[in-house]
C-alpha cells in the first residue's frame, strides 16, 4: 500500500508511463499528438488550455478537439480566453462539459448557444487575476497545454516576447503533480534564454505551423475620429494633468489610442512631459511609439507583446522589460498585479453605462466575459502606498469626511452614441437580461459604478468622486450623456448646479476649443507614420499597411 498522502504523484507517474511510448526524449511527434493527449488526460480531468488575448496553443487545442469522446469526456476546461473555434469544438464534440474562464470575445455567440443548450456548465466568469488565483486554490489543472516559442531537447522552454499566462499556468500545474505539455514553434539546440525550466515540463511537440498570434492591440491612427481627438484632449487636460497621473493602464481602443497619440503634441504643448504618463502597465501599443520617442515614457511592463513590435521593444530596453538575450519579457499575472496595485489610473471604453455608473460590454446572445479590465478598473482596497494622484482622488471622495485611504482613478471614456445610433447610456444594462437568459448568479458588469471615478464623453467630464448622493451621481451621468434618452431626461437645473461645483465640466470649462480638435493634433495619422516614428523598427502586420 502506497502512502495515502501522495496519490497525485502516483497518478502523475501513471500518466507519464502511458505517455512514454509516444515520446522520444521529451518530444512528441505532431502526428502522435491526439494519441498522446488521450494517454496523458483522463476523463473528468481539469485541463488548462492556454489561450490568451494573443498567443494560442492552437495545435494542442485542435488535437484535443480531435480526441475520441469515448476516451476523453467530462473534462473541466479552465482557460483564460476562448478565442478559437477549436476551444468550443471541445464542448460540442462531448469531450468537455464544464468551463471556468475569463474572456471569450470571438466565440461569445457559440458559447452562449451551448450554455442555453446546457452543453456547457459555466462555473464562473472571472477576471484574469481571479482565475490565476484559483489555479492555485480550487481550480488547479491536472494537465496544462501551453504554447512556447521554442524548446530544447531537454524540454526547457523559451517563451519569446509573448509570455502572457504561461508561467502562472505552469507553476500551478507542475507543482501539484500535473502534466505540462507544450507546443513550440521550433526546436533549438540552444535557447536564447530559458523561461520555463525543463523540470517543470513533461513533453513538447513542434507544431506543424507557428502558434497563432492576434495583433489585438494595434489601432490604425487613420481611423481615429475628431470626436475621439476631442475626448482625448479633455481627458489629458481635465484628468491626467489635474491629478498628475504618472502610473497608468490604458484599455484597448481608439479612444485611448488617441490619447497616446496626443501626448507628444497636445500634452507637450501643455508642458506635461515628465509630469504625466511616465510608467505604464500596458502591452506595447504601436500608438505609444511617438510618446516614447518624445521622451514621455520611462517604463512599460507588458502582459504580452504585440505583433510587429519585437524589434522596437528590443531596441528600447530602457523602457521595456527585456531578457539578457535582448528580446521582450512579458507576464500577464505580474502586469495585472501592477495594474491593480501599482497604477493610479485606468482608462478605457465600454458599450453601456447605467445611471449608477456600472458599465458593461455584455450584449444579448453573447457571453463575452471580462478579461483584465475589471482588475485594472477597480480600486485596490488592499493598497497602502501613497501617490499624489491617489491621495487627491481619495480626498475628493471623502469630501468633508476624513480620508483614510486614497482612490484609484477609474475613467470610462465613451461617445454618447456608438455606431448606428446605439446609446452608450442606458437606464438598464443588457447585462441584466443576459443574466436572466443564461441563468447566471450576477449580471456580467465589467466595471462597477462604485469604482468609476470619471466619465468622459464628447459633452464633458463627470467627476463622480465629488457627488454626494445617488441622485447627484445620476444627474452627473445624465449631464454628460448628450442626446441619448438618458441625457435628455436630465434635470437641467441640477446639472447646471453640478457644473458650477465642477462636478461636470464642459470643454469650455477646461479651456478647450472644440475647433482645435482635429486629426492634425495626432502625432501619427497612419500606420506608416508609426513606422517612421520608430525609425523603421516597427514592422506592422501586412493587413495594416497601405504601402
Amino acid at each position, binding site marked *: 500500500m502506497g502512502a495515502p498522502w501522495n496519490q497525485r504523484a502516483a497518478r502523475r507517474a501513471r500518466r507519464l508511463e502511458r505517455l512514454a511510448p509516444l515520446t522520444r526524449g521529451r518530444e512528441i511527434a505532431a502526428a502522435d499528438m491526439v494519441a498522446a493527449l488521450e494517454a496523458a488526460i483522463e476523463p473528468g480531468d481539469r485541463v488548462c488550455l492556454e489561450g490568451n488575448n494573443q498567443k494560442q496553443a492552437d495545435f494542442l487545442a485542435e488535437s484535443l478537439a480531435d480526441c475520441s469522446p469515448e476516451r476523453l469526456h467530462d473534462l473541466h476546461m479552465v482557460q483564460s480566453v476562448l478565442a478559437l473555434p477549436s476551444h468550443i469544438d471541445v464542448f460540442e464534440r462531448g469531450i468537455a462539459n464544464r468551463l471556468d474562464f475569463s474572456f471569450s470575445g470571438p466565440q461569445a455567440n457559440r458559447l452562449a448557444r451551448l450554455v442555453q443548450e446546457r452543453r456547457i456548465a459555466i462555473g464562473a466568469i472571472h477576471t484574469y487575476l481571479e482565475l490565476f488565483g484559483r489555479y492555485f486554490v480550487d481550480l488547479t489543472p491536472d494537465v496544462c497545454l501551453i504554447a512556447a516559442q521554442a524548446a530544447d531537447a531537454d524540454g526547457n522552454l523559451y517563451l519569446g516576447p509573448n509570455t502572457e499566462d504561461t508561467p502562472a499556468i505552469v507553476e500551478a500545474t507542475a507543482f501539484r503533480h500535473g502534466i505540462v505539455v507544450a507546443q513550440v514553434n521550433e526546436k533549438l539546440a540552444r535557447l536564447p534564454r530559458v523561461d520555463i525550466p525543463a523540470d517543470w515540463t513533461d513533453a513538447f511537440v513542434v507544431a506543424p505551423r507557428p502558434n497563432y498570434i492576434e495583433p489585438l492591440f494595434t489601432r490604425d491612427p487613420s481611423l481615429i475620429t475628431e470626436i475621439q481627438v476631442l475626448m482625448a484632449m479633455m481627458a489629458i487636460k481635465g484628468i491626467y494633468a489635474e491629478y498628475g497621473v504618472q502610473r497608468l493602464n490604458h484599455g484597448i481602443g481608439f479612444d485611448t489610442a488617441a490619447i497616446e497619440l496626443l501626448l507628444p*503634441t497636445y500634452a507637450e504643448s501643455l508642458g506635461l512631459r515628465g509630469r504625466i504618463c511616465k510608467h505604464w502597465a500596458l502591452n506595447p501599443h504601436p500608438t505609444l511609439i511617438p510618446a516614447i520617442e518624445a521622451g514621455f515614457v520611462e517604463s512599460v511592463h507588458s502582459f504580452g507583446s504585440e505583433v510587429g513590435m519585437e524589434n522596437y521593444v528590443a531596441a528600447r530596453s530602457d523602457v521595456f522589460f527585456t531578457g539578457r538575450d535582448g528580446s521582450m519579457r512579458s507576464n500577464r499575472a505580474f502586469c495585472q498585479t501592477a495594474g491593480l496595485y501599482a497604477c493610479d489610473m485606468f482608462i478605457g471604453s465600454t458599450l453601456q453605462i447605467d445611471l449608477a455608473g456600472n458599465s458593461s460590454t455584455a450584449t444579448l446572445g453573447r457571453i463575452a466575459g471580462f478579461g483584465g479590465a475589471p482588475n485594472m478598473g477597480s480600486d485596490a482596497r488592499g493598497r497602502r502606498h501613497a501617490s499624489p494622484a491617489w491621495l487627491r482622488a481619495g480626498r475628493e471622495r471623502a469630501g468633508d469626511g476624513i480620508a483614510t485611504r486614497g482612490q484609484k482613478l477609474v475613467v470610462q471614456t465613451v461617445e454618447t452614441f456608438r455606431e448606428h445610433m446605439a446609446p452608450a447610456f442606458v437606464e438598464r444594462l443588457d447585462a441584466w437580461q443576459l443574466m436572466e437568459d443564461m441563468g447566471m448568479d450576477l449580471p456580467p458588469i465589467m466595471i462597477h459604478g462604485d469604482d468609476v471615478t470619471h466619465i468622459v464623453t464628447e459633452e464633458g467630464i463627470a467627476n463622480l468622486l465629488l457627488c454626494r448622493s445617488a441622485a447627484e451621481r445620476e444627474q452627473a451621468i445624465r449631464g454628460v450623456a448628450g442626446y441619448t434618452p438618458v441625457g435628455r431626461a436630465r434635470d437641467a437645473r441640477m446639472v447646471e448646479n453640478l457644473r458650477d461645483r465642477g462636478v461636470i465640466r464642459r470643454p469650455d470649462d477646461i479651456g478647450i476649443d472644440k475647433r482645435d480638435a482635429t*486629426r492634425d493634433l495626432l502625432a501619427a*495619422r*497612419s500606420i506608416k507614420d508609426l513606422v*517612421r516614428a520608430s525609425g523603421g523598427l516597427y514592422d506592422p502586420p*501586412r493587413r495594416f*499597411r*497601405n*504601402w
Partner: protein
Amino acid sequence: MNRPHRHSWFEADARARIAGLVDAGSFRELCGAHERLTSPHLAALDLPAAFDDGVVVGEATLDGRPVLVGAQQGAFNGGAVGEIHGAKLRGLFERARRTRPAAVLLAIDSGGVRLHEANAGLIAISELMRALLAARADGIPVYGLIGGSCGAFGGMGIVARLCDALVMSEEGRLGLSGPEVIETVKGVDEFDSKDRALVWRVTGGKLRRSLGDATMLVDDDIASFRDAARSLLARPVPARDLAALDADQRALAQRAARYAEARDGLDIWRVLGLPDPGAIPMLDAADFNRLLASLPSPTEAA
C-alpha cells in the same frame, strides 16, 4: 517629434485638396453645392445624396496661370462616377476647349462607375473620356493627381491613363479591376486583396512610377502635389502625334514581355536592378526618386 506636420493629401477632402493645390484663394467653383445638382438615381434608391454629387469642379490659377480643376470626393460613395458627377467633369473638359486654360488638373479619387447608376454612370464616364481626349486634341494638357484612399480604378483608371501625365503618391493606387474584384473572379491565389502590402506593391504609386505609368512620385503631402503640378505646368505641352503613340505602344509591348513572370512589385524592382527591393516600400519619395534616377534606363514608358 518635431517633424514638421504635413498636410496629408490622402486625408484631405476634395475641397481641401483644391485649396492647397492652386494659388491661395483663386478657386471659383462651378456648378457648386448650392445649385444642388444631386443624383436622381440615388434619390430613386432612397440613398443619401451629396449636394455636389461627390465632385468639385471650377477654375483657378496656378503660379498665376489659369487652370481648370476637378477633384473627386473619395469619401462619398467611393468617389464613384454617377450621371451628374460625370457630367460635371465632362463639362469641365468642354469648358477647357472654350477657355483654353494652361492645363486641366484632375484630382482622381474613385473606384470607377457608380454601380447604383448602371448605364447612366457608364455613359457618363465614356462621355468624360471623350471630352478629355477632345480637350487634349485641342492642345490643352491634362494632368492627373492620384493620392486618395480610393485610388483610380475601373473607368477612372482608364481616365487616369488618358492624361498627359500623372502625379502619384505611394498611397495612391492605379489599376483597372480593383483588388477585391480580381480576388473574387480569379481566386485568392491569384491576388490576395487582404494582403494590403501586396496590393500597394502592385497598384501603388511607387510601382506605377517604376513602370512609367506615373510621371512623378511625391510624398503624401498637399504641398508636394502642388509643387509637382507647378513643374508639370512649366513643361512644354507633351507631344501627341502618331510617332509618340507608336513609341508608347512599343514600350508597353516591351514591358509586357520583360515582366511576364512578375507576380509582385518586388519582382519588377528586382528585374529593374534596384538594390534591396524589400526596402523600397519604406523609402521617402525623394530617396526613391533618386534610386530610380540612378538606373541606366530609369523607367519603361513615357
